């Protein structure tokens, strides 16, 4: 166990946190810190024109199969750049099966989706746009539609040098736009940069609990407040699967589509999480630790939106997590014995991880025109 911890720490340090080597030597979790600028991939540099194009594409429903759903339908600026139901709405005629995550600060993540199935925003966008439960779009149709929008043809030519808009550049432009949705000046960030007045006394107590008695920092560590590793916390299954026919359809579709065994397809009654990617039993029910900034706007919480507010979350951890059908629950979770006051302090600290809401009006979507 100890060796594993050292290895993972070394990884974290090696990946992003140059300058914290001293702490790693002490075999601690990566320390909390203010969030810097997001990494920009060398093969997709940010330009103003690319970001502007990506913004239009993000809001354009013609990316979706029936031209009625855009990225912004499940990642809505007015719903924390996510979706306010426990389970995301999904494509018309369907429902998704997991909670829609905020796009805010996704630029910092190396593991996107709840089980890290995409490693970059460029890679996340097509999965969302083309999946049957989300965008249900198709590459040829997307390219064909964009070719009939003169404003896009011009922009793709200027930004990417495309004769006609290329679908891979759709994902690049979307990713560039998403990298502008940054939330790194929260009261917590200000505090960590030295503004000791940025947090209230109560929030400072909460911060101490976060790093100490409540041990949130075990997984929610580093400047992003996530170790980007996978755990089963015993989050209970989504209510929707018991009560909604549409959700039951999606549930089976996922078991079928993601390639479980016949036996598993017949008997499973919960989301096996990371298992669908690795097909390792030890990964059943595991999900990637989410970052915690902007969470004031992104309720409900957890991969299936089980908890509606911070109080419910803190109670869940105070009880030592929950129970689900997978025998893989992390041993890191134990009852915390927090007093009511301590719980309130912790909630107050969580509130300090969000600054002003990132608002954005839906841009005017450029129209189709016939080709000459």
């Amino acid at each position: 166990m100890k060796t594993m911890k050292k290895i993972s720490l070394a990884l974290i340090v090696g990946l992003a946190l140059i300058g914290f080597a001293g702490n790693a030597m002490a075999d601690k979790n990566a320390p909390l810190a203010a969030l810097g600028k997001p990494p920009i991939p060398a093969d997709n540099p940010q330009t103003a024109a690319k970001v502007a194009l990506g913004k239009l594409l993000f809001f354009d429903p013609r990316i979706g199969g029936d031209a009625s759903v855009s990225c912004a339908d499940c990642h809505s600026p007015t719903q924390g750049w996510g979706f306010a139901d426990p389970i995301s709405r999904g494509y018309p005629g369907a429902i998704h099966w997991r909670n829609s995550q905020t796009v805010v600060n996704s630029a910092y993540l190396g593991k996107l989706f709840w089980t890290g199935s995409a490693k970059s925003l460029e890679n996340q966008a097509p999965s969302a746009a083309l999946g049957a439960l989300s965008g249900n779009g198709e590459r040829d149709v997307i390219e064909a539609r964009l070719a009939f929008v003169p404003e896009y043809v011009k922009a793709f030519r200027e930004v990417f040098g495309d004769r006609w808009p290329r679908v891979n550049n759709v994902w690049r432009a979307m990713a560039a736009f998403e990298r502008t949705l940054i939330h790194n000046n929260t009261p917590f960030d200000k505090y960590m940069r030295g503004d000791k007045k940025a947090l209230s006394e109560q929030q400072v107590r909460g911060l101490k609990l976060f790093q100490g008695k409540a041990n949130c920092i075990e997984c929610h560590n580093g400047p992003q407040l996530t170790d980007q590793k996978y755990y089963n916390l015993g989050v209970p299954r989504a209510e929707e699967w018991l009560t909604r026919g549409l959700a039951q359809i999606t549930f089976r579709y996922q078991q079928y589509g993601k390639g479980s065994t016949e036996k598993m397809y017949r008997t499973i009654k919960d989301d096996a999480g990371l298992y669908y990617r690795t097909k390792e039993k030890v990964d059943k029910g595991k999900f990637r630790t989410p970052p915690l900034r902007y969470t004031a706007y992104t309720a409900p919480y957890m991969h299936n939106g089980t908890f509606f507010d911070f109080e419910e979350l803190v109670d869940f951890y105070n009880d030592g997590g929950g129970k689900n059908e997978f025998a893989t629950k992390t041993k890191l979770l134990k009852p915390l014995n927090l007093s009511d006051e301590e719980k309130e302090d912790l909630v107050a600290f969580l509130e300090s991880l969000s600054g002003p809401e990132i608002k954005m009006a839906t841009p005017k979507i450029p129209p189709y025109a016939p080709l000459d």
Partner: protein
Amino acid sequence: MINRPIHSIGKKLTVFVAGVFALGLIINATSASADGFGPIKAPKVDAKKAALGKRLFFDPRLSGDAAISCSTCHIPSKGFADGLELSKAYPGSDGFRNTPTLINTAQRAAWFHDGRLGTNLNDVTRESITETYNMNMDMRLMQERVKQDPIYVKMFKDAGYGEPSNGSIRKAIPEYLKTLTSRGSAFDAGKMSDAAKRGFELFKGKAGCAACHSGNRFTDDQPYNTGVPNNPDIWRKPLRHMTYVAFGLFMGIENIMNIRRDVGAHVRTHKADGSDIGKFMTPTLRELKQTAPYMHNGMIRTLKGVVEFYNNGGGSDANKDPRIKPLGLSKEERANLVTFLNALSGKPLTGKQHVWPGKIDVNYKPIKDWLKQRN
């Protein structure tokens, strides 16, 4: 053997014909004789499987956003076509070809106006349901939708398919399509008027129609270029044009962004010299009364117009089949031909046998005691 009427040779040879183009042409030549025309033999049908296929055919939950069913474009009261020049498409797209009738479709050797599928109705069903601009359905999701409906669960079981699956959906729909057989035309009943009979003689003789419109369905299932004019609506309306572009990108049509015509069977044969551009499958002539407008792009509204078109030697196209020449038919002869063509239409297939009676409840009830049930 090739002198025998096609219907008695059976399906195996029909498939064989599709594979061997040259042999197909020989058959064309011989079926221009009086032989080979007659009523269509109804295929043997499993009633329970067909009933299941019928419900699926009318169920919008078989499309991605649950907005359209097969019957949205293949409307029973319009001869299982739609009465439009150019078809509709999945929401967000619009069609670039005329919806073909499904009556007698089980007898075809190749499907779609370009004949690009030459296998079977199982494949045609799959193509139509999954194609983005048709029904845009992930068939795995379709399977789970169907499994959520207790009526289907029972129907699949009763039909001998066991549990609903996307494989058996693709079998049941073709079984239903096999029930769509022309019935009751004056031609089949041997009750044609004298004018129609004179039209039939012209059809086989002076007008030369039977060179391609051969066999019981009055088609040789081969593609030809007759010079049907371009439908400008495809290139004028972005929703149609972009659907053709998406189709072209997928099919590998060269120079797709600059093309302003439907290349037709070129997507199947890809001839380097482009001599196959503009070829379209000979359509059946049965049930024409119900299926106007005509041609692969709906460019001709009436049968009178179609006869005029051929009397004038077809349209103008560099690749036009040399056999299409002005016919020199008199006004009366042209009228007789139209009368004959009308005699090839029978009773509409709009009864309970062919149309799912009542409304399909498209809402999904939750499975009770879900935790205790096997998925």
